[in-house]
């Protein structure tokens, strides 16, 4: 069950250029049921900006009631968020949506986790849970440039980790898809820019695959129809899924991306 709660900020750190790691404590952590769910954050108690911001849960701990997010300072909402300090309260709605189905990979099988930019964060909790249940986890993480790379060490603890930067300033030069070609795996979990997800869907249509989508949101809970996508089996029709409440994670081929 989702809740609306004022959660206390435990820590906030800039872990790469304009990339912030933010941890909060709240009862709603007990409601999280899968990696890949997200929260909807109100960054001000006034109307500027008006709407909540959707941010993935990058890791959580039910014992300490803490959850961590990693976000990029982009526009006005995340800029305000970045100014907040430990001790302050944050108005959070969540957990929202349906996360990655870890039950789809059995112990001993290999899961490939592909993340691009701020699509990387939700993969972290997924990686931890998959590793804990005995799966082999391979990570391919793409970033724009060296200064925005984050969490490479953290992912390494759970398995092989390949990093690519678009400009080649760190590790391999190019896109994550270039790296993936060389790897063997049973199932893909991916989150990142739409072109990346599309490329994966096309090239590995034979593989079991779960993709986390992004869409501009209003309510975040399924009421406003802002975030719909077409179902793949009815591309010209009226069937749809809502990214916020049916997703953000979908099985590849389920919806049109």
């Amino acid at each position, binding site marked *: *069950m*989702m809740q*609306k709660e004022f959660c206390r900020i435990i820590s906030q750190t800039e872990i790469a250029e304009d990339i912030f790691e933010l941890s909060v404590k709240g009862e709603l952590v007990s409601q999280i049921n899968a990696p890949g769910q997200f929260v909807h954050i*109100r960054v001000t108690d006034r*109307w*500027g*900006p*008006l*709407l*909540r911001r959707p941010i993935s849960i990058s890791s959580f701990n039910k014992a300490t009631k803490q959850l961590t997010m990693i976000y990029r300072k982009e526009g006005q909402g995340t800029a305000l968020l970045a100014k907040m300090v430990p001790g302050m309260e944050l108005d959070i*709605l969540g957990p929202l949506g349906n996360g990655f189905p870890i039950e789809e990979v059995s112990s001993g099988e290999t899961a490939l986790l592909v993340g691009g930019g701020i699509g990387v964060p939700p993969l972290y909790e997924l990686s931890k849970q998959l590793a804990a249940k005995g799966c082999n986890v391979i990570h391919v993480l793409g970033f724009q440039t060296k200064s925005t790379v984050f969490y490479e060490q953290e992912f390494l603890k759970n398995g092989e980790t390949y990093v690519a930067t678009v400009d080649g300033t760190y590790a391999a030069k190019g896109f994550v898809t270039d790296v993936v070609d060389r790897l063997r795996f049973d199932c893909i979990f991916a989150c990142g820019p739409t072109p990346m997800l599309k490329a994966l869907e096309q090239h590995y249509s034979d593989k079991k695959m779960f993709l986390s989508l992004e*869409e*501009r*949101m*209003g*309510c*975040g*809970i*399924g*009421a*406003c*129809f*802002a*975030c*719909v*996508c*077409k179902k793949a089996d009815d591309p010209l*029709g*009226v069937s*749809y899924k809502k990214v916020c*409440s049916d997703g953000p994670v979908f099985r590849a081929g389920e919806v049109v991306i």
Partner: protein
Amino acid sequence: MSRLNVELPGLNLKNPIMPASGCFGFGREYSQFYDLSVLGAIMIKATTVEPRFGNPTPRVAETDAGMLNAIGLQNPGLEKVIAKELPWLSQFDVPIIANVAGSLEEDYVAVASEISKAANVHALELNISCPNVKTGGIAFGTIPEVAKQLTRKVKEVSEVPVYVKLSPNVTNIVEMAKAVEEGGADGLTMINTIVGMRLDLKTGRPILANRTGGLSGPAIKPVAIRMIYEVSQAVSLPIIGMGGVQSAEDVVEYFYAGASAVAVGTANFVDPFVCPTIIEELPPILEKLGFEHISECKGRSWKQHEPFAHYRA
């Protein structure tokens, strides 16, 4: 004793607060947060004869103190609303106002005649003002004669009172209100969204796939207040006011302007508890302002106040 109950054509409301159409779906999502029976009424998402997918995404864009939407009337269609959504809503002790939309006169008539038969639908809201659909629509909301004619046709078939939802995108809103009054409307709801646009700094292109969208939220409140102020003095229909309502104080301002009830749209996205919160905060505010009942606020912006009331009539 309640300070908040309100009587309107077809609607016996325990309080004058209701979610606005399109901002509350069919109530399912918000029922996870609170008991929908606390609401005065629920304005459900626009219903069309056939299911509609609506516009491509992105469908929303934020603006200063507001947002643009171009959902495009996505809905599951008349049949499913009657078979699934309305029966589900009947578990709550709350009257439903069904928002009726379409492209052609026949569409409106078809939806109205069917949906008005549902037991928990106590009134219709004729959506002649959606800025986000291409065909039809626009004329219904901007040409007085066309609006009047449509209202008349829908009145003929509806089994419950008909409220007409006015568009603010007109030169003369009073003219529109008078036309639908002549067409036999039982009430008005106003305002729908104002047509607006935002462009992406990086691409130069509109953020919304539909390019334009409807502006809602606090930004439009002064426009809504002005229009209700004008219309409430010119027609004798009750008005359900909306546009940027966020607080109990806003509700009082709408009543002062001439509204008889108030709908809350965008604010539900910001705070899912906004409706019950307003309902709770209204009585103490009325108390503080010295009103025994919310109805005393009505039209205070233009009515002669006590002790001058006896100078009139």
